[in-house]
């Protein structure tokens, strides 16, 4: 940083120009706020997005809460091949396999739990899946629980989820974890 010149060392001029900048922001934004409160549409006086009521659109690439894709009969497409469980760097997927009644389908998961308290949302499970049975396209980000156990989402919860709208708005409600069903 170069040393300050005389004008800068005198402060006053620089301070006034700084006040001019911030003051201009104030009056410009104030004018916009007032114009809006009188019903005149126009540029907003603030860049704030009032979050729970307003949301910015999510990217279609967003990795959000997982869902298990269903077959046409409603059963999970997953064949319990353990690929996702193996690739998962956080070891948050737990699968117990079972025989499928249809001999053409090898297996079906009896349990498919994802511990979202451990999940790092890397998306490796989606990439590893050979059956396109797990996706992260629900658009749901705001899940919470009162305990660590509540963060474990079961097969039924994951199967009930729908993909998000094209603009990223979630289509299904957030599944209520067991420890929040009071």
């Amino acid at each position, binding site marked *: 940083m170069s040393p300050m010149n005389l004008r800068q060392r005198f402060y006053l001029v620089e*301070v006034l120009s700084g*006040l001019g*900048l*911030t*003051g201009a*922001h104030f009056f410009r934004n104030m004018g916009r706020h007032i114009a809006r409160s009188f019903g005149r549409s126009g540029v907003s006086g603030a860049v704030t997005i009032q979050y729970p009521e307003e949301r910015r659109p999510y990217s279609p690439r967003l990795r959000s809460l997982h869902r298990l894709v269903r077959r046409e009969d409603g059963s999970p497409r997953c064949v319990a091949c353990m690929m996702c469980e193996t690739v998962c760097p956080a070891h948050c997927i737990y699968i117990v396999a079972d025989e499928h009644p249809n001999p053409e389908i090898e297996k079906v998961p009896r349990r498919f739990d994802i511990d979202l308290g451990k999940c790092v949302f890397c998306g490796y499970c989606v990439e590893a899946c050979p059956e396109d049975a797990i996706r992260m396209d629900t658009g749901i980000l705001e899940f919470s629980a009162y305990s660590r156990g509540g963060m474990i989402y079961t097969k039924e919860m994951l199967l009930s989820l729908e993909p998000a709208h094209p603009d990223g708005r979630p289509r299904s409600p957030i599944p209520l974890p067991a420890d929040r069903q009071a």
Partner: protein
Amino acid sequence: MIDLGIAFGRVAFMMLFVLNVAALLGWVERKQSAIMQDRIGANRASIFGVRALGLFHPLADTLKMLTKEDFRPARADRLLFELAPFVSVFFALVAFASIPFGDTLRVAGRDVPLQAVTLNVGLLYVFAMLSLGVYGVMMAGWSSANNYALLGGQRAAALMISAEIAIGASIMGVVMIHGSLNLMEIVRGQGRLLWGWLPAWGILTQPLAFVLFVTAGIAATKRIPFDTPEGESEIIGYFIEYSGMKFGMFLMTDMVETIVLAGLSTSLFLGGWQIPYLVAAGFRFPWGSAIELSPLVVTVLQVGAFIGKVAVVIFVLMLIRWTLPRFRYDQAMRLGWLGLFPLSIANIVLTGLALIAWGSG
């Protein structure tokens, strides 16, 4: 009996004005900074769904502070620790007493000067009270039994003393022009017209003193950019051990001192309750026309002018507060002792020479 009522009314008006504006300042500060920074600002506190632009946030804050734990460190000096916030806020509140908010008003056959207390040495009184405020800060810093608080208190004391010397020197020019330490006289003196049309407000007759006074005043009230004593987020200051409403009282001291500074700047440099060309009987414009007004209307206009001017000064102080980054401790000291103080002395000399040259008119 009437005298007592009048005296009570004068004090009550000032007290309610200061306290209410202080409560509002928290909201003003939040909203103004938000609008300056393209944000919206706190707007979530609501009563039955009514948000009222976030006006309930000061209320919610007060409620929060009152219900929080009032913690006292085990090794703290009990008496001084409990006393410090009260000392701080008390001296800030009483400092407003001699600032006039209007000209004399005839009530029940008496001439009542519109200020809480009429003092011949009102200006000295205000500065005495503001200087005593440093004791609250030092007591808080020392009695907390916390080294950071102690260092913060020392920074505050050093900064406030160096700033108050500059304040005292910078207002001498105003005092020399008006030949009085009575704030009412100083405000009346600013009602004169220069060359028949220009109001002789202090900002026009003493521009250098105005800049010095505001700068030193911000430093004396420990606000950004001179908030080295507090430095909320990084260097932590004298009230680090305070919690609950005692902490709230330090915040309130901050707000009240801002109002005192705004009131003083208004009285000394912006003509106090004066409106240009308004005399006791109505407007007397320099081009000869006149509007007659009843004394009550004139008084209401004057009080309104005072409040409006205070609001404008507070706006500017907030603008400064949310624009400038903090001065480092040594920079603040250098500015105080090598910048403000010598310039104030130079201003006194210049004012003296000017008064000799053009007479003391």
